[in-house]
């Protein structure tokens, strides 16, 4: 357990001792702030619904910035040789790193709560809907981080890790659109089920469906398990 926590602390320290953390958080805040202003002031409706939708898309572009260095950076700096020869099990490395990335996600998400101040000051938003949206956003982020981390473990090159992660995440986001082209019920439901955006849309509407919660958790778990097996196999 101490090993896992040490990895976690190292990851967080690495984010904050390099410009990544500050860059990612400020870009995400700027983007979210812009969408929030646009949605609230242009439409005059005091909700977070539209903003959450935009945050989801913005997240797809920010996730690779957080995850691309997780393993590729270690391979590149030859520090993987240290991690794999220290008394650590591969899953401890994977989970420690994942927790570090999650910390970034939570901080990013928490920072967007600043938008809620004017919303509550001048409007009358539904607290439960907003809470549900945030829960959905965090779950979506967890799945995206796990996928990004998996791809980072497959290549030495951080840029390539990011270049694979982006289209895969965008694919999962838009896969629901394929539904309209399918006549088969099976394919329609499959595409719907795999869609990151359709599950997220339920959360935004204030609906916490166990199916959606399980979906995001299962996607994360599968990606992290593949990640662990890959490290084991690489040995």
């Amino acid at each position, binding site marked *: 357990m101490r090993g896992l926590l*040490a990895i976690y602390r190292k990851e967080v320290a690495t984010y904050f001792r390099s410009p990544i953390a500050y860059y990612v958080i400020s870009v995400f805040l700027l983007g979210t702030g812009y969408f929030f202003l646009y949605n609230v002031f242009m439409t005059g409706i005091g909700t977070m619904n539209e903003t959450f939708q935009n945050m989801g898309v913005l997240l797809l572009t920010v996730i690779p910035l957080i995850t691309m260095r997780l393993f590729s950076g270690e391979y590149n700096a030859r*520090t993987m040789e240290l991690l794999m*020869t220290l008394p650590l099990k591969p899953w401890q490395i994977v989970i420690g790193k994942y927790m570090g990335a999650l910390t970034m996600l939570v901080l990013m998400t928490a920072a967007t709560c600043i938008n809620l101040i004017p919303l509550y000051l001048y409007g009358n938003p539904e607290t439960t809907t907003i809470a549900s949206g945030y829960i959905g956003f965090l779950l979506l982020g967890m799945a995206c981080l796990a996928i990004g981390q998996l791809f980072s473990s497959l290549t030495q090159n951080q840029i390539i890790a990011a270049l694979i992660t982006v289209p895969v995440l965008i694919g999962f986001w838009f896969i629901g659109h394929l539904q309209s082209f399918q006549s088969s019920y099976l394919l329609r439901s499959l595409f719907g089920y795999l869609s990151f955006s359709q599950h997220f849309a339920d959360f935004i509407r204030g609906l916490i469906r166990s199916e959606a919660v399980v979906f995001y958790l299962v996607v994360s778990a599968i990606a992290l398990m593949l990640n662990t097996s890959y490290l084991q196999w690489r040995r």
Partner: protein
Amino acid sequence: MIALESVSKRYGSKTIIHDVSFTVGTGEIVGFLGPNGAGKTTTMRMIAGYTTPSSGNIRVAGFDMATQNEDAACKIGYVPEIPPLYDVLDVSAYLMFVATVKGVPRRAIRADLDRVITACRLEAVATREIYKLSKGYRQRLGLAQALLGKPEVLLLDEPTAGLDPGQIQETREVIRAFGEKHSVLLSTHILPEVTLICARVAIINHGRLLAIDSPSGLQQASEQTNSVTLDATAPEQPLREALASIEGVNAVSVRTLPGHESLHRVECQVDARDGIEARIARAVAGRWELHRLERQQPTLENIFLRYVGARQLDGARA
């Protein structure tokens, strides 16, 4: 402490390490010698548990590396060829990280850090970020990291590469002190280093272990084919005959030195026996003029080149 039993490593159809077996005992420093690309690093990585052998068995500190590599990892200090450092961390934070993962008790961490910082002379940079360190400091930080905890086995992949002579001296002292009570396997292609600190030498090339013995043992083994060189002013044929008749001289080759009609340089292949130079000197100096007589001592370099070169010729022929 370290025991390799017919270890092989294949990548696809290519075999990198062929059937290597050797042991390193407690209190022993073994040098691992070979040209670049001989398989030193791959063997080190297998012992350290970074990769697993395709066949064969490795035991370190009593643990089987195939099944108990995490238990063994607590006993191993490993310094890869390129020190595995996190550039954005500072020296203390980095060492703290490694010590925590190695399971050094929380209360003992501070003392352990101080111990390795002093041993590796890192006091001046303890609070500096790693990316600001010079190559020598990076190399020594790599060593410091390996000394954390209480390792019983130290694996060093070219630990003195990139250090200046003073730093090399200090690093050797650290290794020697550690090696008094523990096991050290040190890979290098710097030959004097091996003669200076290693009790035994393993020579490896093309993934095959060619020899393992003490430096003096290797020297003795190859003294059989040693040669004595002499310059003498003498008629060629009688000189040749006189030398060939001495007991212990196996072969004589004579050539005339350019510009001197009767000055010859002679190379005698002799047995590894004491006093052979004296007998040759007596035989020559009694009748003719002897200018120079020299016994060529086999240096580790010669031995190494002989092993490595012979194999390379074999390979070329095959």
